[in-house]
């Protein structure tokens, strides 16, 4: 479900038109029920277009979760926690199989099992699995009413957010689904289209061009180039993922559903804690509510271990590989360090600009463990970075166009971050400024001129 590809919009328009045509034949059916059914089919078509296996795994996970939760709510033969203790592993089984079995069995245990090798991860499994688990926990622990199967399935599979988030909570999205009315409302359509365009700008113009620059010249023996690539990747992953989130938000808004914002200008944060409050907000809040708080969070002496543990698990969520384990652990460590030195610890506080520089630099360094999966290469890079004699200020470029592209992309990237900061100060919303009509005109022009020829898919589709 790549919003930057025309094929997605073609499928959407065709299916919506078909549904409109079906209205004629289904006049006797309750309109709300009819619309929910349409969007359920639309969501399943979107998943099915990706692959039937993706659709099949999603249906299996969602229906098993509903069935067991319904049974627990209705029968209450055993406690909710007992039910959850076997429900959650069952729901995580497909995720573990597709994403981690190869690493666990062939990597860690060093066996040679071809059955689990090179499995294609069903798109969105990491996201909807967590969304469904959160639903089950919220419903069973709080002993809430189970929604109808239709509402539940639409909640799980709502197509703008199923593939790469945001990971919605029952109390936020389900009431909107239960009152679902996708008929056009001018204000929502207006807002939605603007956010879609901003999302496409972030992805197609910024993220994809940054990806292209990363590919131009990687040199593991030059510390300067490694830092440049780290910086490029840190910007790229932000614009890629945030772009998807904004497009998803805009698309949902067009159908009168308000999703959560998954990013809140993290690169204007002045410390690590603030950064992670603004980065992939729905995932970090999921881990906070369902992992960190249940293990007593900061209400114990082992608070530092809890923080590292949560981020380590978060790292594993992102991918099956030792680099992700290291990535998550490093983030946890930096969070602990910040907490130790911050107002809650020693009470030290860096000036805003210095804090911002430290945060950006730290994240640029840590992102290296995210995009380089080869441990030997990582070690080589670390050795190069530690050796100041291996720093040479250069970036391999060919031809005038390359230089021009570099400058254009650099200016756009910096300008975007600055505008986020300004918008945050002015309207308490970092993305408001991009939805202004003048900005929309400029963004429209840039989307058409500056997107590269071949667009890579969203990074987070791999998770």
């Amino acid at each position, binding site marked *: 479900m790549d919003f930057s590809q*025309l094929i997605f919009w073609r499928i959407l328009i065709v299916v919506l038109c078909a549904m409109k045509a079906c209205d004629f034949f289904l006049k006797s059916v309750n309109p709300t029920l009819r619309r929910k059914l349409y969007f359920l089919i639309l969501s399943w078509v979107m998943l099915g277009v990706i692959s039937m296996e993706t659709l099949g795994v999603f249906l299996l996970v969602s229906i098993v979760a509903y069935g067991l939760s319904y049974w627990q709510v209705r029968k209450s033969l055993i406690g909710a926690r007992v039910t959850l203790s076997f429900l959650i592993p069952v729901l995580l089984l497909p995720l573990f199989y597709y994403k981690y079995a190869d690493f666990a069995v062939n990597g860690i245990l060093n066996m040679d099992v071809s059955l689990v090798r090179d499995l294609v991860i069903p798109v969105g499994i990491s996201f909807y699995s967590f969304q469904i688990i959160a639903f089950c926990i919220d419903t069973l622990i709080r002993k809430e009413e189970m929604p109808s199967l239709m509402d539940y399935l639409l909640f799980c599979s709502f197509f703008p957010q199923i593939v790469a988030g945001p990971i919605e909570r029952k109390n936020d999205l389900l009431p909107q689904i239960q009152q679902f009315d996708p008929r056009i409302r001018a204000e929502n359509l207006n807002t939605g289209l603007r956010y879609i365009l901003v999302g496409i700008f972030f992805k197609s113009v910024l993220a994809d061009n940054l990806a292209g620059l990363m590919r131009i010249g990687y040199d593991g023996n030059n510390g300067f180039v490694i830092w440049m690539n780290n910086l490029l990747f840190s910007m790229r992953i932000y614009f890629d993922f945030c772009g998807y989130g904004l497009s998803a938000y805009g698309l949902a808004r067009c159908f009168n559903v308000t999703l959560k914002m998954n990013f809140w200008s993290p690169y204007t944060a002045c410390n690590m804690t603030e950064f992670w409050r603004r980065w992939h907000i729905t995932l970090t809040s999921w881990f906070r509510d369902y992992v960190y708080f249940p293990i007593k969070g900061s209400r114990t002496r082992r608070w530092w271990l809890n923080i590292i543990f949560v981020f380590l698990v978060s790292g594993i969520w992102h991918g099956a590989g030792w680099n992700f384990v290291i990535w998550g652990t490093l983030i946890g460590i930096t969070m602990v360090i910040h907490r130790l030195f911050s107002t809650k610890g020693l009470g030290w506080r860096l000036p805003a600009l210095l804090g911002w520089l430290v945060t950006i630099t730290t994240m640029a360094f840590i992102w290296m463990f995210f995009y380089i999966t080869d441990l030997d290469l990582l070690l080589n890079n670390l050795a190069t970075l530690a050796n100041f004699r291996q720093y040479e200020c250069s970036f391999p470029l060919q031809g005038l166009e390359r230089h021009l592209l570099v400058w254009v992309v650099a200016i756009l990237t910096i300008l975007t971050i600055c505008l986020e900061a300004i918008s945050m100060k002015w309207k308490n919303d970092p993305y408001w400024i991009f939805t202004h009509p003048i900005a929309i005109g400029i963004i429209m022009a840039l989307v058409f001129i500056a997107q590269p020829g071949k667009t890579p898919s969203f990074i987070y589709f791999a998770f």
Partner: protein
Amino acid sequence: MKKLVISAVIGIFIACVVQIWIDRHIEADLCFFGQDVADVKDTWYKTVAGRSEKIHIIAGGSEIATSLDPDSIKDAYGITVMNAGYHAGFGLPPILAVASSYIRPGDHFVCSLYPSSHALQMGMKFAFMRLGSGVLSSPVMPVSEADILKIITGNLLLSCWHLDYAWSRYKYSIPHLHYYEIPENGKLHDSGFLEIKLRTMEQKESPPTAYLKGPMETYLQKTLHIRQYCDKVGADFSVLLPPLHNDSPAYRLRHAKIALMLVEHGIRVLKDERLGICTDVTMFADTVAHLSSQGVQKNTEIWGKALKEGSFWTKEELQHVIEEYELSGRADIL
């Protein structure tokens, strides 16, 4: 909502204007082919136009522009060759108009275009291609949606102007359009193609074009038109299959069938044993069609020799090549 629509429209307009400026002044490939190459060719032609010797004019796209060295041919074989290869994105008529504007009676016009290029007709919709992004949009060669968006926006307002620019720059004029589809007395020119096809069908159980799909018929028809034009002007005409890299030598079979189709309709095909297909990737530079310096050297040698000796494929030779592939069981690429 009104503000959104207005902003979007203004944005698209700005995109077109900026894109056009980029195409004209920054985009290296287009600047090179659109201006520099044209200048060089025009200047060169002016120096030889007054001579009485026969000139072999080889027309095509960038695959010809980047594959033939006339000076080497002159040095080695003593014949005068005009490299009239340009940029396929200009479209077929300007390419042929430019090349044909150089033809004098007695010259030899060699048409070297990929068969799919004939589907380009009046030039690709919205005219310009960007070699840098590897876009070649035609009904035959699909392109990604992002590229279409780029081309359409970049050239929406300018496509006509660009074509006009190309046509005026290259002295494109109405008479050159005649061999395409100018109606005469309200009727289209009879290309003679149908008559030829019918005659062939009477003689054989399966006509020679039976195994070739739609674009090949267009290709044959247009090639016949160009030959008619050359006949009118009093110049010789032949076809040369342009160089193309492909890992499978079996693609030579496809070109052999295309060459056979041309030969059976009375069109001479210059003899190059490779039939355009080169499996050696070191002969190519940035794409499957543009030769490296090593490739140019080798290609120039082969074509120079063929032009000097005036060697063309015969029907029997091509049939033998086809039979060879079919017997070896490698005929399944089509």
